[in-house]
């Protein structure tokens, strides 16, 4: 079952790339938008916000990471089940909580910790199932 093992490893790598890119992208966007400040919902305010966002390097880094997320998501879906990748990607919520505690020293409510435990247990359960249950395109033709 060497191919099965290879499938698992490359799926794991792509899901990790997805999670890292999505989290880094959101973080960059949030940081960039807080540099810009609250957007005024008037035509002049929106035009000003547009000028500031397209000239902000942090926003562009965020867009780059989110593009990386979309590309790794599309790539992994070319071989793995949607019902495998989608719940596995939720690991990002758990990771974000750990990062917030370690680096930002945020306090986390017991309710949120229960959520993190449920996500980790759920991702481990899904992770044990076969990453792909449908036929390959080449097999379907044959």
């Amino acid at each position, binding site marked *: 079952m060497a191919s099965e093992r290879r499938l698992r490893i490359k799926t794991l790598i792509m899901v990790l790339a997805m999670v890292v890119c999505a989290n880094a992208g959101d973080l960059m966007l949030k940081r960039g938008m807080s540099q810009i400040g609250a957007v005024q919902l008037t035509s002049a305010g929106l035009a000003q916000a547009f000028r500031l966002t397209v000239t902000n390097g942090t926003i562009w880094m965020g867009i780059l990471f989110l593009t990386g997320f979309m590309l790794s998501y599309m790539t992994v879906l*070319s071989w793995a089940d949607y019902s495998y990748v*989608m719940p596995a990607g939720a690991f990002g919520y758990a990771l974000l909580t750990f990062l917030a505690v370690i680096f930002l020293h945020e306090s986390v409510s017991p309710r949120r910790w*229960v*959520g993190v435990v449920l*996500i980790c*247990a*759920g991702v481990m359960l899904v*992770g044990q199932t076969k990453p792909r*249950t449908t036929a390959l395109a080449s097999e379907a033709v044959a």
Partner: protein
Amino acid sequence: MRVILALTVLILGSTGGEIAITHGMKATGEPVRLRPLELLRFLGRAVRNGWFWAGVPLMALSFYSLLVLLSWEPISLVIPASALSYVVGTLGAKYILGEQVSAARWAGVVLVCAGVALVAAG
């Protein structure tokens, strides 16, 4: 009522869009090697697939209804409620894409759905 309607559009839009893109990616086939040139060719094939372009507007519609929802309701209600898309997406994967969802996978999806709702609620 309008909140439930917008939430329905949010969940069906995102899962519908992702299912269409998954279908398109399966038709595209996986890249032979994960090298830059091979990945570029692979992406070129992917964006020439009609299912990819069926998925994009659905996901845009879903994003728009998320923005609308956030203008009506607090984020601590909107994101936990949208965690239902894990269950809806799994139903779509089973009945539309024909994936085999075993008992273990279902159990995992339900745990993830509950977990995301709790984490997002704070």
